[in-house]
């Protein structure tokens, strides 16, 4: 082996090794830090996460239009986000392919000096996922377009005839357009630029340009009968399917950059690098040379390049990360999976996101802490029981609160709205199946379960229930369904907007042992500072087996007793001396500031910021330092 080839292979190995390390880090970051399961779960926040069903009809519906095949593939691969490590693997492989394709294209164009650009798509993927946005289909379309560009470059490299090149272009155009829809335009643009600017085959380039417009129209509109708008924009980031939804527009700039950076690189490189005698070209080349010399031996240079890359990646991650959003996604995920300690742990960072607080309240109830800790978070009356009238489609976990309480009709309505907008997401179907089983609508429940049994990861749950419906048609052995039936309201009346208090009172009227309704009603009275009602509510404490009077209830009772001088009935429970001492201390501090709320705020917030005393006075909570 000659020294030169030895050096080359050594360099290649080093590059491979460093690339491997980079992608291992990329994978670990996605798996362990980002956790793509959160994206899968957050159907109510991410509005375009696809549904995938194991059925011929589903497949046929997708492949019957241009771009459908890729959409189908993307929907399939996206399902692996359900398993954290598998989803991360899918994205890592996608990123690796992107970087390899860009690398190949740049090398073929003679732009090896810009090889570092191969990491641009990877960095963009990092931005997208660090921001918890979902653009998998669009990025897959980008990748497929690049693969076809590579294939075109490789196939036509040795061809002498322009006619054959044109035939290759046409064949690949037809295949690509059918597979990836509008993303074909990226392929066409890159090929046109290649032929016109790099190879200077003008007639061929112009013909390709004409075909770039003709192929979508002929295939998309005339052959497949699609809309002319969709024919040119489906699968591209400027499709109306993305731009008409606020939530889908997040990180869209990054996607634009992803689609534009290669054409722009080709254009600018032609203008600056390929122009003979260009000053910029000379400067750049000399700069690269100098950099190579000053960086020392190849291994060191590779390390230095890697270091710079990692620095860029690190900066990207830092600037793109949004802890508030991660908290919301984590809380949503854990709340949907009824993982209460995890909900509380994820929500420990200060947040005012109403949906997070709503999930926290539910987690507190299920862990028996609502009467103790609810004012450790910023509370608001609107947050306690989202009924779905505003921002109806956001955060599906709120519908679980309705189900847990027994509000089946309210949850059914909201979940059906979600199906209409988001499609047959397994998480929605599961809940609709449950609701219909609770309502003894077994035939419709079977349809939901049937649809669910065709999904990849939720079929076991559905099949178990289908079997149970066979063996136990009334589901009398299912304790959860029996419990939910016992708490469902029976009184029917017409509503447009729900009165939360009335809804909770109805639940208690149906079943005065509905502990969740009791705690939520008490919490509602506390949040709305209706102390008289709150006290009357707490007086029913004996319907439930509370070992002691929850601290926040004590605080509410004390405020009432001190404020009205009226006694309260607490059969079996007593107000503790500690609580009395607390209210006296609170009053003392407040009085020491001449009852000036503003002046007393700091001191009271420090000591009592998580108490009901504080909320009652200031209307805010969760401010204890």
């Amino acid at each position, binding site marked *: 082996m000659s020294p030169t080839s030895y050096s080359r292979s050594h360099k290649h190995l080093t590059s491979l090794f460093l690339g491997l390390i980079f992608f291992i880090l990329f994978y670990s970051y996605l798996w362990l830090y980002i956790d793509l399961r959160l994206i899968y779960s957050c159907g109510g926040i991410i509005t375009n996460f696809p549904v995938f069903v194991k059925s011929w009809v589903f497949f046929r519906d997708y492949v019957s239009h241009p771009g459908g095949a890729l959409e189908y593939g993307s929907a399939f691969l996206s399902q692996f986000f359900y398993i954290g490590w598998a989803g991360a693997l899918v994205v890592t492989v996608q990123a690796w392919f992107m970087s390899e394709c860009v690398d190949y294209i740049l090398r073929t164009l003679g732009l090896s000096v810009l090889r570092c650009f191969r990491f641009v798509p990877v960095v963009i993927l990092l931005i997208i996922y660090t921001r918890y946005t979902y653009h998998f289909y669009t990025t897959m379309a980008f990748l497929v377009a690049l693969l076809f560009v590579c294939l075109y470059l490789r196939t036509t490299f040795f061809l002498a005839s322009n006619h054959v090149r044109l035939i290759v272009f046409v064949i690949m155009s037809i295949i690509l357009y059918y597979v990836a829809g509008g993303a074909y335009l990226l392929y066409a643009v890159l090929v046109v630029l290649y032929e016109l600017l790099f190879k200077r085959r003008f007639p061929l380039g112009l013909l390709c340009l004409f075909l770039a417009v003709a192929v979508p129209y002929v295939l998309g509109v005339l052959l497949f009968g699609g809309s002319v708008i969709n024919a040119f924009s489906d699968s591209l980031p400027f499709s109306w399917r993305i731009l008409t939804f606020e939530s889908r527009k997040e990180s869209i700039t990054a996607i634009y950059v992803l689609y534009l950076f290669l054409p722009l690189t080709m254009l600018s490189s032609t203008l600056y690098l390929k122009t003979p005698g260009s000053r910029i070209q000379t400067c750049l080349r000399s700069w690269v040379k100098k950099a190579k010399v000053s960086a020392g031996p190849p291994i060191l240079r590779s390390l230095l390049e890697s270091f710079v890359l990692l620095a860029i990646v690190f900066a990207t991650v830092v600037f793109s990360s949004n802890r508030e959003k991660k908290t919301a996604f984590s809380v949503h995920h854990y709340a949907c999976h009824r993982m209460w300690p995890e909900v509380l742990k994820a929500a420990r960072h200060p947040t005012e996101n109403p949906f997070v607080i709503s999930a926290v309240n539910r987690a507190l109830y299920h862990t028996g802490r609502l009467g103790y800790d609810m004012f450790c978070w910023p509370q608001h009356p609107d947050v306690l029981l989202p009924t779905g009238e505003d921002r109806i489609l956001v955060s599906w976990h709120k519908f679980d609160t309705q189900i847990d309480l027994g509000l089946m009709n309210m949850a059914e309505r909201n979940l059906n709205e979600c199906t209409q907008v988001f499609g047959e997401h397994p998480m929605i179907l599961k809940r609709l199946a449950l609701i219909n089983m609770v309502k003894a609508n077994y035939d419709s429940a079977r349809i939901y379960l049937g649809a669910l049994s065709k999904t990849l990861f939720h079929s076991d749950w559905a099949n178990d229930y289908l079997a149970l419906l066979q063996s136990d048609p009334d589901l009398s052995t299912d304790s959860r369904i029996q419990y939910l039936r016992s708490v469902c309201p029976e009184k*029917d009346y017409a509503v447009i907007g729900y009165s939360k208090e009335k809804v909770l009172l109805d639940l208690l009227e149906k079943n005065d042992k509905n502990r969740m309704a009791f705690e939520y009603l008490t919490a509602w009275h506390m949040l709305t500072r209706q102390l008289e009602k709150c006290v009357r509510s707490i007086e029913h404490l004996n319907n439930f087996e509370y070992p002691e009077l929850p601290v926040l209830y004590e605080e509410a009772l004390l405020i009432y007793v001190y404020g009205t001088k009226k006694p309260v009935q607490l059969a079996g429970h007593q107000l503790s001396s500690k609580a009395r001492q607390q209210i006296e201390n609170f009053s003392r501090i407040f009085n020491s500031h001449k009852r000036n709320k503003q002046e007393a705020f700091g001191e009271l917030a420090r000591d009592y910021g998580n108490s009901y005393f504080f909320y009652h006075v200031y209307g805010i909570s969760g401010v204890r330092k």
Partner: protein
Amino acid sequence: MTREHKVRTVRILVVIAAVAMIACTLAFVLREEKVAIDQVILIDRPARIHPDYSGTVIPPNITPLNFSIREKGSHYCVRIYSKQSKNIEIISKTPKITIPEDRWHALLDDNRGEALSFLVFVKAEGGEWHRFSPILNNIANEEIDRYLVYRKIYPVYSAWNRMGIYQRDLQKFDESLVLNNDYFEGGCLNCHSFCVNNPGKMLIGIRSSKYGSSAVLVEDGKGQKIGTKFGYTSWHPSGRLATYSINQVNMFFHTAKTEVRDVIDLDSLLAYYLVDRKKVKTAPDISRKDRLETYPTWSPDGRYLYFCSAPLSWTDRKAIPTDYNEIKYDLMRINYDIDKDEWGELETVLLSRDTGLSILLPRISPDGRWLLFCMSDYGCFPVYQRTSDLYMIDLEKASQTGRYEPRRLNINSDESESWHSWSSNSRWIAFSSKRDSGVFTRSYLCYLDENGTAGKPFLLPQKDPDHYDTYLRTYSVPELINESVSVAPEKLGRVIRGSPDILCDMPITTATPKAAVPAAQGKPWLTERE
């Protein structure tokens, strides 16, 4: 022979051998299994099949009634026979029975007016064959209109996103798109209506935040955008005008009822669009300020407009009246002279006071004899009323006796029946029913003989007999038409995306004023219904 030739010959032989092997393997795998059913145990009941295609009357031009056998077994055999023609025998290892289309059509065509039997054999787990009593159906003499147009949509509450109008060829399993909201970048489309079962004249209502509310009028393959949205629409048989309702729809919800949704028209009136003059008009008797007029339908001779009407007793047009469950619609009709564009006197056909029920969705058979409609406990929207059933009045008899006598059809179920339409020969109806699940509306077809006696309705057949078991969209507003809609979806899409060809000013001074304004401007979804 040179070495090169030898190699080539060997290659060819290898390829031929490989192809032959593949062909043999395929032939073996796909061979028609011969099953010997020598000894059978007779089961004295028909086999359970799904969908329930037993005891029905079917059109001679209907697509095969594929079904699943709901009996346990390892092999299944079905023999389909009638008086003439060769039997069809299907052997299957799965309970799904897929009937060959050509042979099915030949059998039906040769046996119009005869009985059609399905003889089901099931090989039980013990290895013995069970033969069930035959499942009997009848083949009608009269054909059904070949196409059925319906809207597929998820059960709707307030929001909408994915919806489309489709046409189904009833002789085949082919379903094709008429229009979906992809063609105008999201929005709502509904209220498709045809002039006497002919898609040559068609109207589709559109609501789009980007392209506005409009009605797309299709005449002889050309689409025009009318700058106002039509509600429930009925074409005059001459095709010269279309009457439509304008409804101020409000949806509300039930806290504990099985059906969560309910609907009230807080205001409504009828208007009509004169096709030649490109003008919208109304008349005092169809747009009274003290009444809610809706669901117009023309008599086949074009002399009478039938419609539903209820008293409007409230003044607040924003709140649901407390007595919403007392609102009941009467059935009215009014004479019309199309040549003079003159309306006659308003007549009462049927009063809700007499029936105790709300009368909705009147549709008259093309032969003019039968008036088919829904009645439910209250309200204006039968799809959300479990009590909604189909009733019929013999108009011929009524013209002789002067009395309109409604008769409840024996095809109703415990769930809602609604959205019925007639085939052009007046022998078939298509209607929506929730009888299978209580939630998902499906399309049913039903035969009516010359005396108005209805056969047992049957579910719109699908290639996969288990299709409905997992299908989460509803089949809404099934309309029978005798030809296919030939206008391409993109052509309609272009019309919608363009500016209105016809601008219409509503004559609000003569009508219930508020109803003339779109119900919830800026919130078009609020008026969406299945």
